[in-house]
């Protein structure tokens, strides 16, 4: 009986074991809260810095257009060759009289079947 009692006393009790376990798991020392550093406040950007890229792009396009127009003034545009030689505008047309009417008498007679 005494052996049993001694054995019981030697055993850790569940309550104490759980207490020791959870206390050992708790972080020590408990960490203090550190507020994150305030984010740096941004200064309002100037109009130039905000739109500088767009302004530069617009300036480039304007410069290109002005250069093109200036050069176009120095070198006038020539008609591109069509590949067809220029011929008299009367080709294929019936002769006209002085008043500009077509002379129908000059028409070729229709072929007649003489059989």
């Amino acid at each position, binding site marked *: 009986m005494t052996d049993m009692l001694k054995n*019981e006393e*030697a*055993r*850790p*009790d*569940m*309550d104490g*074991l*759980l*207490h*020791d*376990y*959870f*206390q*050992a*798991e*708790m*972080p*020590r020392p*408990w*960490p*203090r*809260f550190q*507020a*994150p550093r305030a984010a740096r406040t941004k200064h309002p950007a100037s109009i130039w810095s905000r739109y500088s890229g767009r302004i530069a792009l617009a300036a480039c396009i304007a410069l290109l257009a002005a250069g093109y127009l200036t050069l176009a003034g120095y070198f006038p545009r020539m008609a591109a060759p069509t590949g067809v030689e220029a011929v008299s505008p009367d080709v294929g047309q019936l002769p006209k009289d002085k008043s500009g009417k077509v002379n129908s008498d000059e028409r070729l007679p229709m072929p007649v079947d003489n059989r």
Partner: protein
Amino acid sequence: MKPRPKKPPHQAAFEEIYDRHSREVWALVYARWLNADIALDIMQETFLRLWKQWQDGSDIVNPRAWLLRVARNLAEDHAKSAFRRNGTQPPQTMNGVQGHDVLPLDGMARDETFGQLRKELEHLPPADREILTLRYALDYDTNKIADMLDINPTAVHMRLSRARQRLAERLSAQGVEVNHD
């Protein structure tokens, strides 16, 4: 002597909330994961989110409820990300428990017992682990636990007793003899 710069009033109020509830938040997450480091990370993340809410001027009526809810969600999110990392296999946790000035041999024996205890705690329902953590890590009494978890004090008492008995039986089966109650 140079006087210390005074903290802004909202920071002092925030630190008061931190002192009052950070352990509860830690305990809640610890009960979910049984990992002190994960619990600490999630606890800090939870308070960081509250801080940001404060900075944005959000009006949080019940910071404690807000904190506990966010901590639970973060713990569950961690479960999902852990699942993605580890598949169906849970990450292996070390049996070693952070020591606090214990002699090496005693520490080894204690760590072994604690390792077995942790293994058995993993088999308990999460709700029972929550109660055990609040009881033994924060030294909360039955009424305070019941109040925090919004359950009956009798139910807390019964679940505590049942969890202790189950743990004692399981540890005995592992060769660790402990008295129950």
